[in-house]
């Protein structure tokens, strides 16, 4: 993981939904390994669509996205799953399986490395069991190992989700509004977790955020989207407060 892996190249990517709505409009981005990128913009500006295009939870209509020089937009079947395995993701609603234990949720992040049968029988290697413990330890949730996921608070669930994502041994870490349903204190914990992954493990982190102060605090680079277009892209040293009024300007045709 220390190797400079985790580049994301977005090349002339557009996404038009079936109803004609433009989700992304000719986006070009070159994200280097180890960057902490925060994507800001109004709701409906295309932040989620962009993130979901990177691991292809959404298909794009035009252009290419390369993860460490592998084209995920063209990949199929096993090849697609192999690329996805290197891209971890956490979500606004955590997306844990509520009825099962924290441990089983964490192992869910590793199933991409196992055959259907092996994973179904829970035949995880000793190494991966240790990995699960380490990842839970890292987010301070090891004592909840046997707890059911739905007994945890929102912040705890998000931290378990981070541990689950880490099980993928990813090179790129996506976070789609990870703190939108959390209180300020847990917000800081989750953002600090992401920061540590970035700094200690050299992981590329791409986060969608609504909060400008948080973006300025954590990002190494800020990207602004408006109406599906890339309207802003600066390293943190060059970011000025006044820049945000432009990104957050209401669009006249304000489409979703």
């Amino acid at each position, binding site marked *: 993981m220390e190797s400079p892996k985790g580049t994301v190249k977005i090349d002339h990517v557009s996404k038009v939904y079936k109803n004609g709505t433009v989700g992304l409009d000719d986006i070009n981005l070159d994200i280097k390994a180890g960057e902490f990128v925060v994507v800001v913009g109004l709701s409906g500006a295309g932040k989620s669509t962009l993130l979901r295009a990177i691991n292809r939870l959404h298909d794009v209509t035009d252009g290419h996205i390369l993860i460490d020089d592998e084209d995920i937009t063209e990949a199929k079947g096993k090849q697609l799953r192999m690329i*996805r395995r290197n891209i971890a993701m956490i979500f606004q609603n955590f997306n844990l399986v509520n*009825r099962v234990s924290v441990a089983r949720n964490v192992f869910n992040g*590793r199933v*991409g490395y196992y055959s*259907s049968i092996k994973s179904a029988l829970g035949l995880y290697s000793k190494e991966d069991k240790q990995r699960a413990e380490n990842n839970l330890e890292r987010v301070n949730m090891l004592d909840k190992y046997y707890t059911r996921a739905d007994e945890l608070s929102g912040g705890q669930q998000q931290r378990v989700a981070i541990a*689950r994502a880490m099980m993928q041994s990813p090179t790129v870490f996506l976070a789609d509004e990870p703190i939108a349903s959390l209180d300020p204190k847990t917000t800081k914990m989750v953002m600090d977790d992401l920061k540590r992954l970035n700094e200690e493990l050299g992981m590329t982190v791409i986060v969608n955020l609504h909060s400008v102060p948080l973006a300025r605090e954590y990002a190494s680079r800020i990207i602004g989207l408006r109406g599906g277009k890339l309207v802003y892209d600066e390293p943190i040293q060059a970011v000025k407060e006044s820049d945000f009024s432009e990104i957050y300007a209401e669009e006249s045709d304000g489409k979703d």
Partner: protein
Amino acid sequence: MNATLPERDFAQKWHLKALFAIILVAIIIAGSVQKVGIETEFSWDQFFQIWKEMAHPDWSYFPVIVQPILETVQMALVGTLFGTLLAIPFSLMASTNIMKNKFVLSVVRFFLNIVRAVPDMLLAAVFVAIVGIGPMAGVGALTVFSFGMISKLFYEAVETIDEGPVEALTAAGANSVQTIIFAVIPQVTNQFLSYFLYTLEINVRASTVLGYLGAGGVGLYLDQTLSMFLYDRTAIVILGILAVVVVVDGISNHLREALA
């Protein structure tokens, strides 16, 4: 207070639609009453005679029906279990959120609709014709009957799951089988078990009369005692069935509450 209410048109004002619906239903019911001949003589004497004889159950008959009653419950258990196992793959194939291929989805749903359209007694008659008289026919009938019913209950449960975990597993590079095992099944297990028990309740009741058609179980004894006018024995059979149904319903309800 110069505000005026919006105008209602004639049909709205007099609730014409509701009025027509009520008149139509009344006509259909009146017609049905006449066709069925519900006004024909009802023999109260006969009715009370049967009640009187049944009021003195022949308890010595009880040991005879224990075995058939157990067989009835066993038929219901085995039939429900087989039906459920068959229903799991089909219900997944009939869920819009799992099966993205519209063609396969509609074929599977059409097939399930047909299966569900066949009444249990007809299934029993068919199975008696195929495998012969005996509990095997009852098991077959209940398997198919449970399969049809459970498939629908199951796929409706699968369609209400939270899609979030499915998205998370997909993002982690899981294949579709793994997504189903780890993101779908854990969300529906309790509902599945609850529907299994509910179907078992229904099947225990249904299986008591399958014997009428020779499909095994206690129904045969119901038929025999009735046709020989041994109402004191019929009473025992009915009491036995009642006891079993109450016990099974009780256990099942208790478990289903625990599952909810």
